[in-house]
């Protein structure tokens, strides 16, 4: 029974990783760039959510779970705007500059975002206002319990991921995105506005990341400015695990990483859970060099 409990906990954490990993993987898909700033955009989601909630609750003068909805929209828009801005300023001028320069630029943006958060909010742990999130637990029999919050997290993440998948697969814009990730020049010849598609990717990816930040902060209740690096790195690993550039891969990778970590921490030792996750990542990459769902790439000639 403990196993099922661990699986549920693992899936919840995995859902967070998946949401953040989607941002990495989408940007990688269109730009072939590891967007190191993504983790920090995600962290800003948590901070902005905190400010938003505090302001809103002060205005309402009461605690209400419904305050979360407008905050979600505010966080999503702000972080998405920040994402687009980052792309415009720091990545667009570097499209033709080889592969190293954009990585440094991305790391630079990550430095800026993190330092900004530390200076604006301080280095101490921040706690979300109490009484917003549901606290109940539902017993499933045999000592297995699911908290209401876990159910909310899982349902919300699956809805978001499902919607994103349909968007990418079924809409015109989604199709254009897939085309751009294959080849910029040929997409342009087919009449796709590549810059516009990249901007859209930078709206969706960071937007999702921002919301994920908010959800993570709500789930754990408190966080500090290292959240960006810690979760960012894990989510990036999840994206690679599933095969970077591949959207279902990011979802699968995130879930798997969450489950592996939780099982490792439950059955082996909490101290070694990260080591276990990293070692499994390395082993998987040795046998499947492009990740679990990554396409088998022919070498370019």
């Amino acid at each position, binding site marked *: 029974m403990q196993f099922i409990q661990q699986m549920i906990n693992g899936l919840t954490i995995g859902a967070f990783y998946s949401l953040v990993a989607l941002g990495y993987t989408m940007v*990688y898909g269109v730009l*072939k760039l*590891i967007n190191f700033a993504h983790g920090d955009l995600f962290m800003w989601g948590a901070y902005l959510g905190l400010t938003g909630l505090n302001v809103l609750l002060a205005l309402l003068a009461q605690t209400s779970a419904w305050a979360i909805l407008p905050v979600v929209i505010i966080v999503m828009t702000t972080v998405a705007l920040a994402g687009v801005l980052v792309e415009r*300023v*720091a990545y667009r*001028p*570097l*499209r*033709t*500059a*080889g*592969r*190293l*320069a*954009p*990585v*440094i*630029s991305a*790391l*630079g*943006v*990550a*430095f*800026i*975002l*993190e*330092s*900004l958060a*530390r*200076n604006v909010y301080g280095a101490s742990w921040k706690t979300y206002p109490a009484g917003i999130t549901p606290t109940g637990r539902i017993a499933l029999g045999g000592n297995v319990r699911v908290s209401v919050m876990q159910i909310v997290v899982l349902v919300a993440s699956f809805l978001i991921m499902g919607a994103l998948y349909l968007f990418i697969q079924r809409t015109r814009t989604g199709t254009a995105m897939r085309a751009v990730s294959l080849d910029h020049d040929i997409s342009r010849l087919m009449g796709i506005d590549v810059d516009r598609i990249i901007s859209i990717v930078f709206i969706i990816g960071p937007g999702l990341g921002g919301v994920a930040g908010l959800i993570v902060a709500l789930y754990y209740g408190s966080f500090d400015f290292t959240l960006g*690096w810690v979760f960012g*790195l894990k989510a*990036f*690993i999840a994206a*690679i695990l599933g095969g*970077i550039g591949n959207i279902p891969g990011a979802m699968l990778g995130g879930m798997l990483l969450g489950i592996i970590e939780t099982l490792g921490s439950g059955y082996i030792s909490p*101290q*070694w859970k*990260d*080591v276990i996750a*990293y*070692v499994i*990542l*390395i082993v998987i*990459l*040795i046998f499947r*060099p*492009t*990740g679990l769902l990554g396409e088998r*790439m022919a*070498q*370019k*000639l």
Partner: protein
Amino acid sequence: MERLLTRLRQVNPLWWQVGFIVLAVLLPLPLGDYYRSVLWRTGLYVMLGLSLNIIVGYAGLFQLGHAAFYALGAYTAALLNLYFNVPLLLTLPASIVVAAFFGYLITRPILHLRGDYLCIVTIAFGEVVRLVLVNNLFGITGGANGLCGIDRPALFGFELRQPIYHYYLMLIFLVISIFAVHRLEHSRLGRAWMYVREDEVAAEAMGVDTTRVKLLAFVLGSGWAGLVGALYAGKITVISPDMSKFMESVIMFCIVVLGGAGSIPGILVGTLGMVTLPELSRPLKAWRDAWLGFAMVAMMILRPEGLWPSRRVRLEIRGAKEEALPAPATGD
């Protein structure tokens, strides 16, 4: 101005090198201990940059876990010194060998991975090393507090206590490293690295054993970083798992790319930008990282080839830009 530069370029490079060494020897003399330590730190990171440059700059492989090998070198030296009383300078070869061995062990099975996948494995390895040290494997690594009480290096019974002696020790290794790396760059192996960096398939077709060449880059780079780790342990005498932090690897990576990947003077410039200036601007600590980040973005936009790139890389990036733009009617 243009003429002056041309004149300067025509000066025999030997004079530049001698001048540089003389400057490096004289520089710490009028300075206080704090600034001497800053100079030592600069030298340390230049050496780390040189070692990573072999992997990132010459062979073009993404390595974002380089700090792991630096930490491994430091821990090797510290453990040998603390448990077996080996004098610190004699632990240097062991540090090199251990770091190089791990470099081989971790990269051998993953060399066939594409760039970004390789990058994540190196990150993961760096984190594994840090966590193993934190979790105190076999109970000998001292856990999160690390190890302390490491002997300082001693030469013929003369113990190096003051920062300036450490600086000169570093300088000796630095000059050896620069010489060695420069020779490597122009060796058969160096050319093979650059060939692999430019086009792996073509290199293989021309008979370059790409696996062996890439492996050598990792092994040499890692071993060198191990040496630097041991030197660090000798001066600071306290080491902790934080040496293998992702942030450290990021700084090393930035040093190499910011200065211009594959360029030795570029490493020096990159270190000044990433390590020395931030260190000296400690009073501005709160906003230091933001400025650093801002400078990194601005620098890459203005000079994507780095501050002091090797001629080859500069031509390459400028060339790619012209190709990507719609061909202008007149050249500039």
